[in-house]
């Protein structure tokens, strides 16, 4: 968040308290509680996937209750279940710069078919170390993470085309391509720095991602983006700031020009150029990590080249539309005709028309060029401006009735306006300083509507104080009537940016209950207790262990020495829903494992001192859960204690079947 915005906000908040801002009691009317109450044992109407911001994860809430259902680990390690600590999951966080255990997760996109959410996958961006992840919505697990080459700050991502042909990754921070160094001054920025828009192709059956091509744009900050839809399908639109091309004090230097740009990319044209061999192969290196549901293990591959397209050389690939005052949101309405730019420092909202935009191209209604790319005349593409809507427009979502809902950070409100005549229809305060907002399906061709959710940056006095660091919040409003109505607010974990919501029935029936153990192809699977064993290979010790209510096998292990690397490969033999077993061992410096039914997971432990190390199940599994424990004996290095393991006596009748 920019400091100037913060200052403005505070000033705005003070100013408003005297006039506009309602109190909680007057803002919430009588039946709000009944409309958000989901009785014990009942389900919510919608899944709400919310970006975690600086926690790097995705959280899942139920709407309208605001109940937290799950935290999905994506870009940050998660000691709670071993994500990023288990041997199987470590490759998910590998990059060309090594293991990166954290990121900043901003935006989410549910996969679409014909411009509607289909409930298959959820895509998430990493803003810091540029990556895109794919989460499977049958397991709510991160299945794939792809790194982006030639990118600094993957902010305008992971927005999708209407049939999930591509997920987009656009650079917030322009950087020299190929990880080159450069002097840091404005002249060097202009010369060396580039922005890139990466089109990641998605396999329509598996969801597998691959960077199809990259468009190399002049250095500037690509902020947010949206695909065209319906008539504008085939185009991608990005908002930009810092078209001044400053490398320093952007707060001032990137706010010099009256207008920056909406960058319009014709990706169908890009496909044609790639097909015609006009793309250049560039040597690079980036990681592509995938999780295999059968081996319950992730693996990484390294990709060595990327196809690039240069819009200065390739006609008709990119056009620029002037847009006032460092636009942030760049949102396309359900019909695909209107593109709404939201200048962070503007006091109006420009709405562009796709039809007028294409006519302007045909008529060559250009006002000039920017780094060799045609700039369309502002008025030629403009549908109109929403006048005096509020201060600091950020993002816009849509309902199915031709209305738009724009968040205003500075004036801390949501404003409803009409796409047709650009008249403001209603406004409600948010508590406080809204960033993103989300109408369920509000970015698709067929908004589900019913609610708009505000994701607020500042909560100040809204909840019981918890010291200097406070929760961010979400606020749920009904949009069923002409006037928006505040129903509920609830604190969130991490910092929510963009979110998605989908009717529960599109996901809940497909939810996986457990992994079929007969399909488990983990190389260290113990297929039943008889398959458990301990194997020494030099100083590496593999423990093949099983977990079932309520014992671990083997649970007494001797013969391990200081200096050994012990791998506990724990297979959960359960085949029942909601019976994970945990595994933790004393003094392990990493984390625990949570092993789902039918799954195998591995914790590495390298004892540094002799002794006896208790291990146990951490997830309460039965009345005898407390008994689910065991011991590892660690002897000094060079000890002659033989390798020995077991759980009680061996089952005496081994060969009944052959009797």
């Amino acid at each position, binding site marked *: 968040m920019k400091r100037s915005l913060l200052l403005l906000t505070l000033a705005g908040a003070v100013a408003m308290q005297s006039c506009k801002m309602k109190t909680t009691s007057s803002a919430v009317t009588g039946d709000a509680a009944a409309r958000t109450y989901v009785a*014990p*044992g009942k389900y919510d109407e919608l899944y709400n996937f919310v970006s975690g911001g600086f926690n790097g994860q995705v959280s899942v809430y139920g709407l309208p209750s605001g109940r937290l259902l799950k935290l999905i680990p994506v870009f940050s390690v998660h000691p709670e279940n071993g994500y990023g600590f288990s041997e199987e999951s470590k490759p998910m966080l590998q990059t060309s710069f090594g293991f990166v255990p954290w990121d900043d997760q901003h935006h989410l996109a549910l996969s679409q078919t014909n411009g509607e959410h289909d409930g298959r996958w959820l895509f998430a961006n990493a803003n810091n170390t540029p990556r895109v992840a794919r989460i499977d919505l049958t397991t709510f697990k991160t299945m794939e993470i792809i790194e982006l080459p030639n990118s600094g700050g993957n902010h305008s991502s992971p927005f999708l085309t209407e049939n999930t042909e591509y997920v987009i990754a656009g650079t917030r921070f322009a950087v020299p391509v190929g990880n080159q160094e450069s002097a840091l001054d404005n002249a060097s920025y202009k010369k060396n720095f580039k922005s890139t828009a990466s089109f990641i192709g998605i396999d329509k059956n598996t969801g597998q991602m691959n960077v199809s091509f990259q468009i190399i744009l002049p250095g500037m900050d690509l902020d947010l983006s949206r695909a065209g839809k319906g008539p504008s399908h085939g185009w991608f639109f990005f908002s930009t700031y810092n078209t001044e091309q400053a490398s320093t004090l952007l707060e001032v230097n990137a706010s010099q020009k009256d207008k920056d740009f909406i960058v319009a990319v014709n990706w169908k044209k890009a496909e044609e150029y790639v097909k015609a061999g006009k793309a250049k192969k560039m040597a690079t290196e980036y990681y592509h990590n995938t999780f295999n549901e059968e081996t319950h293990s992730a693996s990484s591959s390294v990709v060595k080249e990327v196809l690039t397209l240069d819009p200065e050389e390739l006609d008709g690939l990119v056009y620029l539309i002037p847009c006032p005052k460092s636009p942030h949101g760049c949102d396309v309405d359900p019909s695909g005709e209107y593109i709404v730019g939201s200048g962070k420092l503007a006091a109006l909202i420009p709405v562009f028309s796709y039809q007028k935009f294409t006519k302007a191209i045909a008529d060559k209604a250009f006002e000039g060029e920017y780094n060799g790319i045609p700039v369309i005349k502002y008025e030629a593409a403009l549908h109109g401006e929403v006048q005096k809507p509020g201060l600091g427009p950020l993002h816009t979502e849509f309902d199915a009735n031709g209305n738009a809902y724009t968040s205003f950070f500075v004036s801390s409100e949501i404003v409803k306006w009409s796409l047709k005549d650009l008249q403001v229809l209603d406004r409600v305060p948010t508590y406080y300083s809204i960033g993103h907002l989300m109408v369920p399906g509000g970015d698709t061709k067929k908004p589900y509507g019913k609610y708009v959710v505000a994701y607020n940056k500042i909560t100040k006095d809204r909840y019981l104080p918890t010291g200097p660091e406070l929760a961010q919040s979400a606020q749920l409003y009904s949009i069923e009537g002409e006037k928006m109505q505040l129903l509920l607010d609830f604190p969130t974990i991490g910092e929510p940016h963009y979110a998605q919501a989908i009717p529960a029935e599109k996901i809940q029936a497909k939810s996986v209950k*457990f992994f*079929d*153990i*007969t399909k488990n192809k983990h190389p260290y699977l113990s*297929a*039943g*207790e*008889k*398959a458990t064993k301990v194997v020494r290979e030099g100083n590496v010790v593999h423990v093949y262990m*099983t977990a*079932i*209510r*309520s*014992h671990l*096998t083997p649970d007494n292990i001797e013969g391990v020495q200081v200096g050994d690397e012990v791998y506990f490969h724990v297979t959960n*033999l*359960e*085949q*029942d829903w*909601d*019976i994970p077993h945990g595994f933790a061992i004393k003094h392990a410096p990493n984390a625990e494992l949570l092993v789902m039914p039918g799954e195998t997971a591995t914790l590495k432990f390298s004892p540094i001192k002799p002794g006896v190390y208790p291990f146990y199940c951490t997830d*309460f*599994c*039965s*009345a*005898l859960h407390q008994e689910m424990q065991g011991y590892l004996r660690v002897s000094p290095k060079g000890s002659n204690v033989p390798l020995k393991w077991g759980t*009680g006596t061996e*089952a*005496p*009748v081994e060969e*009944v*079947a052959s*009797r």
Partner: protein
Amino acid sequence: MLLKQLLPVLTTALILTACGGSQKPPASQPAPPAADNSMVEDKPAAADPKGIGKFRDVPLTHPLNEGMVQQGKAVADLKCTSCHRLTGEKLVGPGWKGVTDRRTPEWIMNFITNVDEMLDKDAEAQAMLETCMVRMPNQNLSDEDARAVLEFLRKNDGKN
């Protein structure tokens, strides 16, 4: 999960304490919350020797089907023998020796495939839960796998 799984157990434990029939007196447990008794049946159903479930008539073959015995052993090794010995010795669950004499084939098949309803309603299954104190996991055996395990149990009991 925890409460759902635990409630019937706790309830059973409380009933037990009152009757004094337990081999293993439960430690002092908090009373289950009174408000939500949705998981607790008022009374076990009257004992049906065939148990509760879809299997009402399981035809047995003589001699034993050796293919099924082998398949049953493989399934049991993967999913069952962590808790059940082939002898009469109780491990987590009861030993398997003699089970085909104690129970009907239908009861065994129903218990394997309809675990939760059996544990919640069948008097015999509930009596075992009182002894073992761990709910048998539903290991999601197919009907075919359950039948194969039954054949393996028959072999284990020396049937032919």
